[in-house]
């Protein structure tokens, strides 16, 4: 039954906003333009990180000291770093690591958040209050600081970073899912299921969870850039990934020395590789949000 509401929102999505806003076709064209640009950028990003490593048989770690710190040119579009490695290739590999960590961490955080939020919302009462108090407590520690704490206590590496990002990012999902479950609980179809003799578990899994999945999925997609940002910040501080699995943050950190000598390209391009997927994902998520909730004005959310 939850499916029908989503379907309705789907059909209402594209037409409704133009009618209310009254900006006419101009609005719609920027809308589709944004959707297409974002989708294209996300597609290019995903294809690049998936296809480049197997197709381009070049070693990103190959050191060529003769070609060190070359400015951007035709042979090396992004230039080379301080030991002569091609920066474009390094950036694609770095994006691959960052994106992978981001996606895994965002998925873990979403699963934790959905489980906690759905439990709190479905059980209600005292459990709800205790759980939400706990969420508030964790939320009162700044994210990056908590992440730093976790990574410092468990030595730097891929898994501590994933765990630290996941453990700091599930809170918002838990809040969203709980609010959604609370609003779904009073719907007639839940009453029908309960009076039909469905158990608490069945109501939660069969009737509540499908209803909150679009929201949880949206939260997960929006979390990917956050998780990437978080990971690169940790890596930049020297608390993230080891240098042989260089992420974008590690690349920026490694480029600090050559930046102070005046070479700007090893710093600039990894940062751009972080910004562009972030904006593209935010653009796509904005369209998605408009679909599941057409009444809300769609602003990009980062």
């Amino acid at each position: 039954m939850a499916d029908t509401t989503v379907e309705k929102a789907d059909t209402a999505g594209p037409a409704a906003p133009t009618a209310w806003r009254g900006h006419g076709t101009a609005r719609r064209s920027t809308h589709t333009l944004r959707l297409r640009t974002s989708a294209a950028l996300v597609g290019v990003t995903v294809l690049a990180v998936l296809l480049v490593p197997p197709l381009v048989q070049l070693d990103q770690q190959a050191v060529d000291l003769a070609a060190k710190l070359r400015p951007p040119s035709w042979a090396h579009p992004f230039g080379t770093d301080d030991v002569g490695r091609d920066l474009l290739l390094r950036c694609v590999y770095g994006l691959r690591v960052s994106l992978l960590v981001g996606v895994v961490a965002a998925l873990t955080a979403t699963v934790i958040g959905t489980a906690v939020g759905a439990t709190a919302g479905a059980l209600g009462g005292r459990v709800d209050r205790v759980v939400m108090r706990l969420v508030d407590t964790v939320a009162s520690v700044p994210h990056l600081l908590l992440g730093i704490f976790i990574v410092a206590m468990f030595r730097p590496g891929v898994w501590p970073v994933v765990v630290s990002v996941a453990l700091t990012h599930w809170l918002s999902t838990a809040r969203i899912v709980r609010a959604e479950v609370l609003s779904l609980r009073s719907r007639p179809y839940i009453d029908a299921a309960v009076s039909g003799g469905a158990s608490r578990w069945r109501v939660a899994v069969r009737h509540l969870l499908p209803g909150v999945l679009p929201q949880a999925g949206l939260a997960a997609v929006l979390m990917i850039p956050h998780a990437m940002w978080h990971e690169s910040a940790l890596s930049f501080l020297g608390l993230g990934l080891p240098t042989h699995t260089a992420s974008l943050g590690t690349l920026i950190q490694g480029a600090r020395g050559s930046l102070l000598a005046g070479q700007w390209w090893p710093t600039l391009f990894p940062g751009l590789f972080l910004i562009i997927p972030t904006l593209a994902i935010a653009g796509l998520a904005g369209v998605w949000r408009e679909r599941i909730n057409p009444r809300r004005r769609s602003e990009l959310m980062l």
Partner: protein
Amino acid sequence: MTSLPWGAMARLTARRALLAVPVLLAVTFGAFALAAASPFDPVKAYAGTAALGADRETLDRLRENLGVDRPFTARWWEWLTSAVGGDLGHSSVMRQPVTEVIGERLVWSVLLCAVAFAVAVLLGTVLGVLAARRPGSPLDRAVTSLSYALEAAPVFWIALLAVWLFALELDVLPAGGLTDTGSEHVTAGQLLSHLVLPAGVLAVSQLPWFTLYVRQGVGDALAEDPVRGARARGLSERTVLLGHALRSGLLPVLTLIGSRVPELITGALLVETVFSWPGIAAATVEAATAVDFPLLAALTTLATAAVLAGNLLADLLYGLTDPRVKLSEM
């Protein structure tokens, strides 16, 4: 202006202070539990390379002296009781008591954050109002897209590029630190020139959020009845914009200012590290890389307290500026 409701404000503050106690207890307990679960061995860290050649007995004695053989709940309780007495332990990486580290460095962090925050609020308000005045205009589009791009950009990356541009290419501002190299005392002029870049970068990292919120708030307010009424009475555009739209549009922003403390701390962590600013945020990162638990635990607790204070400030502002909200009901 009527006098402030001091009684209600004091009651809200007291209530929040009481609520903060269990939160801080839980946070410190969590920190000790995490440390107990971690594979990190304080004894080996204390002894350094000497631990490799030391015999079992020495290590055990050391373990006993450091008190790490007892359960973490006991250590937590001991830390807590001495913390209440003003002793937060000894920082191994700074080689001085934790309270001294905080006392020396807190003022620089507060200065940096306060300047950056003030700049971000002022500039964000101006840009937001300019953008909201004509939605869809070139200016609006430029401000909005720039805000989104800046919001997506990692702050440490902006900081590094700012160092490259202003300190290396243009050579107008120092690249980091608090004073020029070789100078013993902190003078106001030096401090000012060293503050510009870190505070500017931190302000730029906070700016998009303010700009977008003010733009949204003022834009919404411009479409509402009070503004239409003001326009119908023939008031000047300036009065309508600043006296009516901005006043009601700023309300939600003002109340959210206090809740920006976590983002400010996050930004300070990165900015202070890039610019070698001798504040507590940079000390946090140093403590983390050296696994200096007493310092890290104290700073985490301090940051949590700052976040809670920010939340309180947000609620106080909300109650004071919006007459529909009663402080006693929060």
